């Protein structure tokens, strides 16, 4: 149908409304793209998000005009439940819990797409004359992707929320089982495409996709969750796009494709930052074993200092770089860091923050945590930018970061970290590490940085130590 024809026959109200809906969808799709584009700068990002929300409002309003819709009460019920839960979640969630939140939302999006496909299957079951091969194929794809997204995200949520162990759960022949299930799902889908009238097979397919989502995420360790959330984000988009193919709805296809692409880019960035391939993350079961390589840690000397020593070091410095890791957020020390930074700035000391791409539990997480503590974003430096600065830095203060500062990643070919891009903290004139003990980090690998002669270790809780340093500097 060419739009012009539709305009000429606009005397027919049904066609005019259909055209209005289609054009509104087009506007919504444009608003989504413009909104995402505005997320490329912190100055325009908030407006961009609002523009995306406006697009969504338009798309939903237009859909309500659809002639096929009769039962508004049921839709309203869904809206009320969803809005109440959504508002509560968005206002109640702590910034440290953002990864869980995103996982949960991903899961709901995937589930919604899968349910749409299930309902469409039900409709086709009762109406044989409406069946078209491409729609049936799309239904199967939506159920499979949506189902995997739903349960996979719920497992990711449970791991991050510590409702279950964060460690990788493995068992013999796990990969074989996963591939067998995937093959079975594809075979059953093909069978249903040939003969749709087999509801039992459809139910089995749905169950397999749900089980597959669980099995794909349980062998992935807590440290790899940033990759998994990014990937599930992509899946939820793909599920939406697949549902668009089911309903012949272009705005679903476009939005799904945008989100799918976004998730893939973030997945790639996370993998590169951890120096791992996606296959290795998904099937490598990294973090299944407990910490290794901690032996012999006791026999090597480290230089320990007290808060007052650190206060003196900082007092004489001209430039200080903070290197925060997730340990900082665990200790709830973001505000103490900001307090120390403000104090140093008042004395004319240049302060910067070095943010590694995997500092936190999801892409960009540390930036949000520091923004919450009122750290201005122009002080937050990405890895490549700050690495040029370390040679000119007087004191690098490492708080709760470990593996991302390990120089062995650059030099030691036998290290499991070898090749991972790191923050060149060891290039600073002096280094202070605030750490609870000499225990190795997430990956269980010893950090060469701690034995560097320029490094001073300040053992203790990050927040208490920072407060002590602030106290010493204020008194001086």
């Amino acid at each position: 149908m060419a739009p012009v024809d539709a305009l000429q026959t606009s005397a027919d109200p049904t066609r005019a409304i259909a055209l209005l809906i289609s054009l509104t969808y087009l506007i919504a799709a444009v608003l989504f793209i413009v909104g995402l584009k505005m997320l490329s700068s912190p100055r325009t990002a908030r407006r961009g998000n609002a523009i995306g929300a406006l697009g969504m409002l338009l798309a939903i309003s237009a859909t309500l005009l659809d002639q096929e819709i009769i039962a508004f009460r049921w839709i309203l019920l869904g809206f009320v439940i969803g809005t109440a839960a959504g508002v509560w979640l968005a206002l109640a969630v702590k910034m440290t819990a953002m990864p869980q939140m995103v996982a949960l939302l991903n899961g709901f999006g995937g589930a919604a797409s899968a349910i749409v496909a299930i309902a469409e299957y039900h409709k086709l079951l009762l109406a044989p004359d409406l069946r078209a091969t491409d729609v049936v194929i799309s239904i199967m794809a939506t159920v499979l992707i949506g189902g995997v997204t739903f349960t996979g995200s719920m497992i990711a949520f449970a791991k991050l929320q510590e409702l279950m162990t964060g460690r990788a759960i493995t068992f013999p022949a796990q990969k074989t089982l996963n591939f067998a299930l995937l093959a079975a799902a594809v075979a059953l889908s093909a069978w249903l495409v040939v003969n749709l009238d087999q509801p039992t097979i459809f139910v089995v397919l749905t169950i397999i996709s749900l089980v597959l989502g669980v099995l794909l995420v349980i062998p992935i360790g807590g440290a790899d969750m940033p990759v998994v959330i990014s990937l599930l984000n992509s899946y939820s988009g793909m599920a939406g796009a697949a549902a668009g193919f089911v309903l012949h709805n272009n705005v679903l296809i476009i939005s799904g494709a945008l989100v799918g692409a976004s998730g893939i880019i973030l997945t790639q960035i996370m993998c590169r930052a951890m120096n791992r391939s996606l296959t290795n993350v998904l099937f490598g079961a990294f973090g299944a074993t407990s910490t290794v390589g901690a032996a012999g840690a006791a026999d090597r000397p480290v230089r320990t200092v007290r808060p007052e020593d650190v206060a003196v070091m900082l007092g004489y410095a001209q430039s200080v770089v903070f290197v925060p890791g997730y340990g900082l957020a665990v200790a709830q020390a973001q505000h103490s860091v900001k307090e120390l930074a403000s104090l140093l700035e008042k004395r004319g000391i240049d302060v910067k923050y070095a943010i590694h791409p995997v500092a936190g539990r999801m892409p960009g997480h540390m930036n949000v945590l520091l923004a919450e503590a009122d750290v201005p974003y122009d002080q937050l430096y990405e890895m490549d930018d700050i690495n040029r600065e370390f040679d000119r830095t007087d004191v690098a203060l490492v708080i709760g970061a470990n593996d991302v500062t390990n120089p062995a990643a650059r030099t030691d070919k036998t290290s499991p970290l070898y090749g991972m891009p790191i923050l060149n903290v060891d290039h600073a004139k002096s280094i202070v590490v605030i750490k609870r003990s000499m225990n190795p980090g997430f990956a269980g690998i010893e950090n060469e940085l701690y034995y560097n002669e320029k490094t001073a270790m300040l053992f203790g809780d990050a927040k208490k130590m920072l407060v002590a340093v602030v106290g010493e500097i204020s008194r001086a």
Partner: protein
Amino acid sequence: MTEALLVALYIFVLAVFVGFEVIAKVPTLLHTPLMSGSNAISGISVIGAILVAGRLDAPYDKILGVAAVAMATINVVGGFLVTDRMLRMFRRSPGRRD
């Protein structure tokens, strides 16, 4: 392959490329809001859910429809709101230009 499907495939592939171009320009500073914001956009499946819930079919479809609308709405409302909550926190140093 029908022409409608072919057009839909064109739209999908082109949108993926637009997605890559637009998203690649988002700095790591904003990757968390990007994720929750794009997440909200993927709640567009709410449209499909509305169509399903609004059809006057078997009660079985009603329940599915309401569940789908509710879950997609959580995705949309929660996603956009929490993104806004985060973006509100990003501030520049007073008196400093970037």
